[in-house]
């Protein structure tokens, strides 16, 4: 290939290339072979289909919400319906999409391969986790079908326990089950990382993708059970009237907040950390350079996981926690922002002196960097005690976490899907169309959520079905942006489906990346490796790759 070409894409000759004969996809046939599979790659595909399904359901709710907010009056739907819409949007997006998105799809698919293992430690638990996901998903959908739930995804007591007659218990049961799905994924990852690494794969030779999943898994295992017990108590409070969260019986509603956020704050790190792992891989590959300060990036993941457990009460600054406590939690919140800053700069400097190309995953990664920086910095606004008073519970919050979750996580997810698509399916996605989708998503996203920052500072409260007319201009902008964003998300669905049949044959290593997953055939065989690799180089060692490629050429030639 010529040194001056603007792409690193290296595809086999399309006239002669074919997909490998035996792959994990065609190893066994029939629906049952998929439903009872223990293969982590197949489970990843099952998850990918499932979360896409739920993403578009959640997205449909988002669309309806934005449509309602087009006009200041509540004219599209009744306020109860609207409340159910945003509750469902939140529950589906958080528990059924964001938490499992990268770990359960890309993580499941890649983790064993990256470590040089044949499978995750507990394949059956992995499958069980997918079934629990569906069970939870169906229960949540059941709550929707039966008439919906309007607590918001936070299940705030005493509203959820005493003042609503919607299907709170059903929804809580769904989330409870989903929690166990997430616990089993995390548990599997931790055991796999500890016990299943290939010979020579030391901790500091692992790709950063694995490190970030490790950090996220710790949070899943230790945080999620607290949510489970909290939701159990909410359900009991509703069914039996036990009074732990009921002030008239001597309970403390703030106890619910403490327990709920003890999980739900680390949960945002569960959501974003795997995305950060994807970004590390993508930026390194398209800069042809190892990640700047590998150790710092690895440890900052762990630091985020650790500090993540100490900051939950920043969701409760105005809720009547003691001032002393607020001080401590605010300070710790400032500390947890630092590792994220480190990561951002390390990613930027990874590009320094690299040899950069601009394929779709890289464009998504650029989008991630910009949006995550805004999302992260606005988090500092909210961590600052005095500022939080004005900003919390307004659209500023909404914009902030959508910047981190959608701008950060979803961008990373799409970057990862495009990046590993050739590995998962053996075929390339159409490049120009996907670049268009990346740009559309970026523009649409900013148009949707930047106005919400302004709305928030102006004071528009979140979860409002109707709002004072002076906020309309910005809301119209936001809704317009949401339309563009919707198109941006539909595009990949269409062209990725198209590419399954018509995409160019990708070959083993289209990106000439260094990861172990790129050294095997695509799509991989069921056992991943013909023989277990012996790892003798660090992650992102492009000189090793060059050497290896040169050798192969000589052998073949």
């Amino acid at each position, binding site marked *: 290939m010529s040194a001056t070409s603007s792409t690193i894409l290296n595809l086999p000759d399309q006239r002669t290339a074919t997909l490998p004969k035996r792959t994990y996809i065609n190893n066994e046939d029939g629906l049952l072979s998929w439903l009872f599979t223990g293969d982590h790659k197949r489970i990843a595909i099952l998850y990918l289909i499932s979360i896409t399904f739920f993403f578009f359901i959640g997205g449909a709710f988002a669309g309806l919400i934005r449509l309602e907010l087009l006009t200041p009056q509540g004219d599209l739907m009744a306020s109860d319906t609207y409340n159910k819409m945003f509750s469902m949007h939140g529950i589906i997006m958080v528990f059924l999409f964001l938490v499992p998105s990268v770990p359960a799809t890309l993580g499941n698919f890649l983790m064993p391969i990256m470590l040089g293992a044949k499978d995750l430690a507990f394949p059956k638990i992995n499958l069980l986790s997918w079934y629990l996901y569906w069970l939870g998903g169906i229960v949540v959908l059941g709550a929707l079908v039966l008439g919906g739930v309007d607590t918001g995804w936070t299940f705030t007591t005493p509203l959820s326990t005493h003042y609503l007659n919607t299907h709170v218990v059903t929804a809580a049961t769904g989330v409870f089950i989903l929690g166990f799905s997430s616990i089993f994924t995390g548990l599997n990852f931790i055991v796999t990382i*500890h*016990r299943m*690494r*290939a*010979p*020579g*794969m*030391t901790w500091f030779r692992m790709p950063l993708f694995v490190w970030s999943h490790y950090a996220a898994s710790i949070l899943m295992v*230790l945080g999620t059970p*607290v949510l489970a017990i909290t939701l159990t108590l909410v359900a009991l409070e509703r069914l039996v009237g036990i009074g732990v969260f009921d002030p008239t019986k001597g309970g403390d509603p*703030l106890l619910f907040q*403490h327990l709920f956020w*003890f999980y739900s704050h680390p949960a945002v790190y569960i959501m974003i950390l795997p995305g950060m792992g994807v970004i590390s891989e993508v930026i390194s590959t398209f800069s042809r350079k190892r990640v700047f300060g590998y150790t710092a990036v690895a440890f900052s993941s762990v630091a985020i996981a650790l500090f993540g*457990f*100490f900051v*939950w*009460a920043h969701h409760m600054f105005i809720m009547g*926690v*003691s*001032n*002393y*406590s607020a001080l*401590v*939690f605010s300070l710790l919140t400032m500390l947890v922002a630092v590792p994220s800053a480190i990561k951002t700069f390390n990613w930027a400097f990874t590009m320094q002196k690299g040899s950069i190309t601009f394929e779709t995953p890289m464009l998504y990664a650029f989008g991630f960097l910009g949006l995550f920086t805004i999302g992260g910095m606005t988090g500092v606004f909210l961590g600052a005690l005095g500022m939080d008073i004005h900003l919390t519970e307004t659209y500023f919050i909404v914009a902030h976490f959508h910047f981190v979750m959608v701008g950060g996580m979803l961008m990373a997810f799409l970057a990862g899907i495009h990046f590993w698509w050739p590995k998962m399916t053996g075929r390339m996605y159409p490049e120009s169309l996907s670049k268009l989708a990346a740009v559309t998503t970026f523009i649409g996203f900013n148009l949707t959520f930047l106005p919400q920052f302004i709305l928030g500072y102006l004071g528009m409260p979140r979860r409002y079905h109707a709002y004072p007319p002076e906020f309309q201009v910005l809301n119209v902008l936001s809704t317009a942006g949401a339309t563009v964003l919707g198109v941006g998300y539909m595009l990949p669905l269409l062209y990725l489906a198209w590419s399954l049949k018509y995409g160019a044959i990708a070959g083993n290593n289209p990106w000439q990346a260094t990861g172990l997953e790129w050294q095997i055939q695509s799509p991989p065989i069921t056992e991943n490796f013909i*023989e*277990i690799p012996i790892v003798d180089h660090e992650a992102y060692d492009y000189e090793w790759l060059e050497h290896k490629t040169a050798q192969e050429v000589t052998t073949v030639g």
Partner: protein
Amino acid sequence: MSEYHDPSNVVNPEHADHHIVTPVTYGIVFATLLIFTGITVAAAFKNLGILNPVVALAIACTKGVIVILFFMHVKYQSKLVKLTVASGFFTFLVLITMTLSDYVSRAWGLW
């Protein structure tokens, strides 16, 4: 089944040999636990003031640690398992102390 024997899993610090605890050890542990149960009931009937819950919890912790170390074999397990157990209790303590930091300091007034 690969014939290849993975050296990193045997020489690495996360590995420990399979140790079989004898019934004698179990018997001693069993007796100790019963004795501690007796002590904790007896101590509850003495008025030790603030020390009552402290003693009760101290005995419960001791019993718990004995069970974890011997019945659950953690004494003979790798550092990894020891660390795992410790991290569980650490996170539990984080939950308790950080939440209590709110409840305790609420009584200190509003500056």
